[in-house]
């Protein structure tokens, strides 16, 4: 049941005119006859609109920095910001020495009114000193929250002074929540500093094993990264670092030694991928480890990149074995899921990635979109030159890296690179739009009003989104699947993850609990009897 532009216009017609004008640019009805449909993205949410978006701090500390397990992440601000990013995202991590894993800890300067009035720099410095004394971590990050920028605390200089006092890296991130228009600004801020200060900050010049790779934009939610690495290691890859799921400061420093960078979440980490290519000559490959076919394709593309016969053979062997193991189970679940229709609205890459997995279960994605993506995540990187910076994006500093004259190394000859680019997404991402069906809906920054309206019109069987939507949708009798946190399940990535996902989605459909919504007395008369013709006997 495809929607028409007219129906979308009807939905938006009920909105105030300014909102209507704004929102109409963020919604597309996919039209395969128009190859270059333009969508507006990464622009401000209008105040009062109930959006799912968060802030720059959430993108910086919550998404990118938080999973780095062997660093201590101090949040400089009132208590809430650190508290809400504490254990809420399901980015798993383990360390050989458990006392070096700080993922279950939460550090805040807990700014009080006097700190707002007189400045919080001293308190921040004292907190760093205390953390050093008690925990002695390898490195520390400082993340700024809204008031920090406003009162002018110079966290950069506090960080530099602490580096001198303690002889470790203390990285300061000016990721105040009001910067940019969503979490996306925070990703960029985090990427810049990790690239500038951590990656390559090591005397190691070479990875210890061949086929060395980094996995970028994989946050190990529910153990995703572990499932991906299981297969990669078996095939023969050496994973130098993961950015940043189960990630570590120590491994991040070695990231320059990889021969290829995989990009899972394009939105949150493409900045680092690009900078690594400029600085060290390491190309990146867009991968998608969600779904069986996408995983297999990503593995094959990797093998093609390296062009090694053993690697290619091993890749095929592993794919064959894994598929043979999981396909019978997927087939069982497919019987439950087949013919269903989904909405898939997630952050900045999963709105695209999960569509393949849904399709493998026989589920069609009729509406998709991203919470905080940019136009290139929808339309592909070819539109990058046409995206004009606005006042919000200009506030995020650009890091200009240059070729590292000593470490830059050409990984591919220009001829091979060109040949590969024709076949595999090497340093390229084609975006979500291209994979959507004709007549399906693409929505940027979907809001509550539109959620209700699109559900009313399109009647999906499952709604894949986040916690804030979940119970809204379920109250309508429609199962909702959290794709940010996986509803406390997972992993969903890789071959094993596909089975978990199929199991969980099938469970949502098959659960008998949905059958009790209508009480029996609603459709049965109170009195049971017959009405005699001609009145009472």
């Amino acid at each position, binding site marked *: 049941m495809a929607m028409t532009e007219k129906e979308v216009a009807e939905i938006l017609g009920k*909105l*105030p005119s300014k*909102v209507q004008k704004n929102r109409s640019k963020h919604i597309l009805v996919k039209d395969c006859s128009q190859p270059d449909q333009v969508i507006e993205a990464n622009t*401000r*949410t*209008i*105040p*009062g609109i109930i959006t799912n*978006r*968060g*802030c*720059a*701090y*959430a993108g910086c500390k919550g998404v990118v920095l938080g999973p780095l397990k062997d660093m201590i992440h*101090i949040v400089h*601000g*009132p*208590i*809430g*910001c*650190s*508290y*809400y*990013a*504490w254990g*809420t995202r399901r980015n798993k991590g383990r360390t050989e020495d*458990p*006392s070096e*894993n*700080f993922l*279950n*800890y*939460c*550090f*805040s*300067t*807990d700014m009080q009114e006097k700190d*707002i009035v007189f400045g919080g720099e001293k*308190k921040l410095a*004292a*907190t760093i000193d205390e953390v050093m004394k*008690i925990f002695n971590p390898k490195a520390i990050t400082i993340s700024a*929250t*809204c008031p920090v*920028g*406003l009162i002018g605390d110079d966290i950069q200089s506090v960080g530099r002074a602490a580096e001198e006092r303690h002889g470790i890296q203390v990285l300061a991130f000016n990721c105040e*929540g*009001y910067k940019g228009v969503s*979490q996306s600004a925070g990703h960029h801020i985090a990427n810049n500093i990790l690239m500038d200060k951590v990656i390559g900050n090591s005397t190691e010049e070479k990875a210890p094993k061949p086929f060395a790779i980094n996995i970028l934009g994989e946050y190990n939610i529910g153990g995703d990264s572990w499932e991906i690495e299981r297969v990669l290691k078996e095939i023969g890859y050496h994973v130098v670092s993961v950015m940043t799921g189960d990630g570590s400061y120590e491994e991040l420093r070695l990231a320059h030694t990889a021969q290829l960078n995989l990009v899972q979440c394009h939105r949150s980490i493409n900045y680092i991928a690009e900078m690594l290519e400029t600085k060290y000559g390491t190309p990146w490959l867009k991968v998608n480890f969600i779904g069986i076919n996408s995983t297999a394709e990503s593995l094959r593309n990797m093998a093609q990149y390296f062009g090694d016969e053993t690697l290619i053979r091993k890749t095929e062997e592993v794919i064959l074995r894994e598929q043979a193991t999981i396909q019978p189970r997927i087939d069982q679940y497919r019987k439950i899921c087949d013919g269903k229709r989904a909405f898939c609205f997630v952050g900045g890459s999963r709105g695209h990635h999960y569509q393949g997995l849904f399709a493998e279960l026989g589920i069609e994605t009729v509406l998709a979109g991203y919470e905080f993506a940019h136009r290139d995540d929808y339309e592909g990187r070819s539109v990058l030159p046409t995206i004009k910076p606005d*006042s*919000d994006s200009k506030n995020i500093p650009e890091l200009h890296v240059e070729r590292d004259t000593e470490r830059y190394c050409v990984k591919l000859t220009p001829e091979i690179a060109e040949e590969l680019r024709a076949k595999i997404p090497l340093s390229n991402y084609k975006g979500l739009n291209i994979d959507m069906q004709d007549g399906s809906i693409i929505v940027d920054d979907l809001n*509550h*009003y539109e959620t209700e309206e699109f559900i009313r019109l399109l009647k999906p069987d499952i709604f894949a989104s986040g*916690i*804030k939507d979940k*119970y*809204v949708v379920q*109250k*309508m009798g429609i199962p909702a699947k959290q794709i940010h946190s996986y509803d406390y399940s997972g992993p969903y990535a890789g071959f094993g993850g596909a089975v978990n996902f199929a199991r969980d989605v099938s469970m949502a459909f098959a659960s008998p609990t949905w059958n009790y919504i*209508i009480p029996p007395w609603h459709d049965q008369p109170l009195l049971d009897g017959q009405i005699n013709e001609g009145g009472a006997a």
Partner: protein
Amino acid sequence: MLDATPKKIVERTSGGMINPAKTCQPIGAMYAALGIHRCLPHSHGSQGCCSYHRMHLTRHFRDPVMASTSSFTEGASVFGGGANLKTAIKNVFEIYDPDVMAVHTTCLSETIGDDLPTIIKQAEMPEGKVVFHANTPSYQGSHITGFSNMTKAMVTYFSESTLLEKEDRVNLIPGFVNPGDMREIKRIAAMMEIPCIMFPDTSGVLDSPMTGSFQMYPEGGVTLPELKKTGDSKLSLALGRFASSDAAGTLEKKCKVPAITLRTPIGIKATDAFVMALRGAFAMEVPRELEEERGQLVDIMTDTHFHFHGKKVAIFGDPDIVAAMVEFSLSLGMQPVHVLTGTPGGALGSGMAGFEEEIKELLSAAGLNGNVKSAGDLFTLHQWIKNEPVDLLIGNTYGKFIARAEDVPFVRLGFPILDRSVHSYLPVVGYHGAMRLIEMISGALLDRQDRDAADEDFELVM
């Protein structure tokens, strides 16, 4: 688990928190505002605040938590958020059509000094619709302070004294408790045939039934006419002084409604005090059914005292809940040896002083002398437990990490509980709530005894 936490306690003077036992004001304000019928809470700050608060409340209640935001950008932060709030007010009423918008501030809008009353006055809004506000700077107090401030704002904005003689009715200010608790408090008042207005009242909002259709504004919540009438009630009972006494005190000043502050009615003594206060003020006999419930509770307490008597317990969480739970654990013959809240106690005006004194008084009356701290964090609590182990830990979900690290049985109580369900529907207040707490406490202790028992000591009857 938490392997980096050393046993040795070094004095910390930075003022920084490690593993906090509180969060910031706005989430409390958002929760309180949801207790008004057809009200949309509005967060005047960056989008992240609203998103985080909705996420957290949703995970605790497993129900929709609707709220809007002023979506500050850098420009708004520099030039003030007035334009954003005015746009938001216009859009919220046009698109989401609440009757009331409850605006709370954030550290951002407080730091730049947005003047909310003026902005609201200048805002365009449809006839008959209402916008009110509470100042909830995140850098003061805790989520409990925010809850208190929003509840107080309901009084300052809406309560009116319109009659010469007060009406035979009690205002019940329940504090930061679950909708299941609010229902139970109202049930007790109804059993005693005493009319009441509860505010805020999230029952029917955050424990709304599954009907197959989504209602943005569910049936529950105190209505504006009811809020107005609180000024004509005969009495206000503030249940929990940190979350509720400010509103009751303000109502006393504004409308001359006498205010009594009681503990949150968790446990037998606090419930008795609540029932006695109602009985005394309204000269209503305690009905047989309620006395029967109390008798059942005491029956359970005496019959099972050997399950928990003498057990050492650590209790943490929000101050009102913790104080009442300490009192109840003493009634059960348990020994609270570590008691901690993250909410600062003392600096915030009349009703808020002296959490530590209150707890120490309770403990010393029982001949005990434990660790007590307000404005504390869970790192401190964990170190205390490492130095003086306990048989049981009671607190919100964050306690599970300590419980695992130290292998201590754990009972979940308070906010937030993110890893178990149903808790928000069932009470811990009243006599029934006390029975439920005993079931949880006994169950946790006996499960541990069973787990650790040798086969020959593993008992059928306990």
